[in-house]
């Protein structure tokens, strides 16, 4: 048999149709779109985000303006969610409350990821004593239940929304460190990381250019789920009087005030609580959907 015969194809096959190459993000989005619950969650999250951004335009009235002629009015065509003990419109306060919650969620997660991701990347990539020390610090912080630590921090820092966000962010940082460390250890065993090292790249460059982009998916999932927890934590701290201070509206502080008027004005407790529930549930749905969409072994 001649060499020409060997190299020639035995059967002529038609050229395969060109498959458009898809980025991992696009693939993940395609998987995410197939989950109706996650899409509904995303839709509700978008509504809350828009409500928080455009609160002044959307709210029917000033959320802190009191009116002695409209004290504890039941929900009606004029006041869709009723009014509170100072005659303030509950709907406006719920809309403005979304601002405090979203801000707390996003900033707390930014603080947590800002501390936890570099620490996790460093621990996972450097290993040795650095890993041991950082892991011990994380073990210590995880030994104190989140809310107790957040209450203690907020108590020592002083009650305010800013301090509540800092407290929630610090208490959430260890979990980001754990997630990033695990993902870094996983990514560091890949051939492309070995190749980057073999080419003589310094460690920090390999970590930032080659490992960091590969730990983004688990960090993104953790961020979404942590936003949900941070919103509950902010509401809890505000409910205890350690977060947003009156008269500024916050869902948690609204619930605190509502406790005194349960018999006379139950709507004061129903609407802010329902807003927290809906918002947190939506973030959890998005987080679950993202986890399934970004996990290559996912269904």
């Amino acid at each position, binding site marked *: 048999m001649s060499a020409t015969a060997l190299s020639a194809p035995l059967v002529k096959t038609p050229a395969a149709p060109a498959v458009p190459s898809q980025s991992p993000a696009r693939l993940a989005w395609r998987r995410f779109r197939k989950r109706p619950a996650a899409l509904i969650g995303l839709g509700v999250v978008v509504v809350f985000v828009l409500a928080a951004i455009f609160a002044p335009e959307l709210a029917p009235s000033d959320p802190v303006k009191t009116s002695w002629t409209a004290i504890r009015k039941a929900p009606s065509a004029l006041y869709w969610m009723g009014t509170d003990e100072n005659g303030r419109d509950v709907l406006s306060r719920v809309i403005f409350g979304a601002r405090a919650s979203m801000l707390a969620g996003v900033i707390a997660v930014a603080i947590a990821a800002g501390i936890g991701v570099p620490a996790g990347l460093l621990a996972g990539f450097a290993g040795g004593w650095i890993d041991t020390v950082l892991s011990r610090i994380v073990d*210590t912080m995880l030994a104190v*239940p989140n809310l*107790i630590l957040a*209450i203690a921090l907020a108590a020592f820092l002083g009650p305010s929304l800013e301090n509540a966000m800092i407290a929630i962010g610090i208490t959430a940082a260890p979990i980001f460190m754990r997630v990033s460390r695990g993902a870094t250890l996983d990514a560091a065993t890949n051939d492309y990381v070995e190749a980057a090292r073999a080419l003589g790249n310094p460690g920090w460059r390999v970590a930032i250019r080659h490992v960091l982009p590969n730990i983004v998916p688990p960090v993104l999932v953790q961020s979404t789920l942590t936003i949900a927890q941070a919103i509950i934590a902010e509401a*809890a701290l505000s409910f205890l*009087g350690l977060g947003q201070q009156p008269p500024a509206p916050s869902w948690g502080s609204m619930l605190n005030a509502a406790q005194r008027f349960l018999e006379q004005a139950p709507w004061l*407790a129903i609407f802010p609580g329902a807003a927290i*529930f809906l918002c947190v549930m939506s973030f*959890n749905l998005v987080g679950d959907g993202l986890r399934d969409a970004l996990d290559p072994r996912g269904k």
Partner: protein
Amino acid sequence: MRGHFGQRLLQVLPTLLMVSLLVFLLQQLMPGDPALVLSGEEHDPQMIAQIRAELWLDRPLPIQYLHWLGGVLQGNLGFSWHIRQPVVDLVLTKLPVTLQLGCMAFVIAVLIGVPAGILSAVKRNSFWDYLANGVGLAGLSTPNFWLGIMLILLISVDLGWLPPSGYVPLSEDWRMSLATTIMPAFVLGNAIAAVLMRHTRSAMLTALDQDYVRTARAKGLSETVVVLRHALRNALVPVVTLGALELGTLLAGAVLTEQVFSIPGFGKMVVDAVFTRDYPVVQGVVLVTATIYTLLNLVADLLYVLINPRMRGA
């Protein structure tokens, strides 16, 4: 097994030591000088100096820490600035109330979470599975203080079935004690039930897919026997250990629940201490909670080794 226990115990000790350092350092975040706060409004320099000397605040930070740690190791958690009592006495008075609430909540969580998880796994992709998952997600997303308020509104205000707040000790009147704690215990157990449901479902799905379950079915055993005697026994191994861990989170949840239902427990004590700026009490509560939580972690780990046949030889 003994080696594993010793190893784990050795890991716990440095963690507890680090926790003590964290709790001590919390005091450094406090705005202002504690001696100024304690000296009252007069701010007499002589009195301030005396307080600083008594509290060792005039010594370097590492010496202060060692002095404080020495006291803690001897059972001295400090002295309440507001109630004027040793913190350890306050903790010992309030902790049983929270433990009663926590134990009841845990029983409720197991009674709801485990059967729901089994049902969800056995009837996978059915209406019951979707319902259990939906209720589980709702349980995880509901702030327990709001659930508490809603239950007070429905059960106490509208129906008048249970008292809306207060607490009666078990030793005084067990019926009234149950009446005052059942609603808060349900609220506290709700989120744990959701977590247990998810863990049980996941463990049961794995177990139901194993060869020994297929063999049991092939032997002609009824589905109930296969699920309860073969699959569940193995599925419960991770669930039991995770359940022990959740006991620790109950302590944190109790802070809010006790506040809503006005139960004079550990959680309410820390919130009251925050508002009276009684920092030694806040520190004491954080330290005790972290110690309990760390020890529960240890128990969970040992329980896993004990009930997992493959780990017994370890």
